[in-house]
């Protein structure tokens, strides 16, 4: 997803009353995160599970929040998603950078990258892939999910090498 649209995604969520953006940085999402930092609406956590905990506290306080992370961190967080977010039915939007989408990405990302869609399916976390053309529709879908008190994930694919 290009820089302009990543920044637009932040602005759109901000406009739709997402009050805090909590997470662990990921290069796939760097323009989105940069926009969060510029607007001082961000908490950078030490681990993804910590970010989910903070976002849960914000949601319990009747404000909406979004958690961003790389899919490596999503894999770290599966127990927290199942035993906190899903168990207590905490409405949260996850924004996940998908490393290993390209089969020639860096080697540490290949295994999780390959099973990423299955992981989401197995734990029952509904998701949509955000692209430069569909992002607004899918952000609206995510906002509808949390309004109905469900958690969901938006995925941004890593389409380049560096």
């Amino acid at each position: 997803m290009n820089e302009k649209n990543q920044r637009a995604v932040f602005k759109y969520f901000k406009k739709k009353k997402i009050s805090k953006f909590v997470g662990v940085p990921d290069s796939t999402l760097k323009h989105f995160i940069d926009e969060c930092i510029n607007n001082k609406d961000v908490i950078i956590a030490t681990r993804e599970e910590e970010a989910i905990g903070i976002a849960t506290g914000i949601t319990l306080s009747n404000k909406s929040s979004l958690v961003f992370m790389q899919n490596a961190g999503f894999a770290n967080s599966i127990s927290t998603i199942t035993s906190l977010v899903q168990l207590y039915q905490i409405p949260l939007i996850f924004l996940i950078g998908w490393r290993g989408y390209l089969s020639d990405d860096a080697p540490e990302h290949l295994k999780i990258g390959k099973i990423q869609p299955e992981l989401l399916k197995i734990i029952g976390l509904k998701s949509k892939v955000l692209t430069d053309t569909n992002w607004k529709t899918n952000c609206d879908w995510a906002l509808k999910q949390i309004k109905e008190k469900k958690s969901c994930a938006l995925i941004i694919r890593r389409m380049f090498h560096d």
Partner: protein
Amino acid sequence: MIRKEAVKIISEKIGENPIVSANGFTSRDVFEVNDKESNFYMIGSMGLASSIGLGIAITKPKKRIFVFDGDGNILMNLGSLVTIGSTKPKNLVHVVFDNNSHESTGSQPTNSSNVSLEKIAKEAHYKVFVAESQSNLITILKKIKKESGPIFLLVKISNSKERSKRVSWKPKTIRDRVMKSL
């Protein structure tokens, strides 16, 4: 002093303020001693009580938020001390019941007897207090009433054979009660 006694003393002194309690015996003690709507009882996701407390504290700056943590729990999320120490919520009181062990899983040792949690918290910009007896705890609770946070209150406890009952509220009900109270 055992955890249940400490939980009782603190719960009585803090009145209606919300408590986020760590999974295992800590939540069970809070539930048995002082069940109230604003208590978020964790029954899983070990380590995250302080993170959830931080999220509530920054969103509800007018309320004083208490986290009831354990040594095993905070050792699973030491990064939380850095995030809290950087965010500096004035309304957060982070209580850690320290028995140098994972009592809920059979009292296996933690390393809190080898490395000082209070020193780590101090380095992370918390105001630090250590309570070693019931009377000491009561004195500290009076003292911190007017202090602004983040406050780290380490309560030294011993293990006990006494068991509190499990939290009987369903997780979704716990969520709804807390959201309503906040």
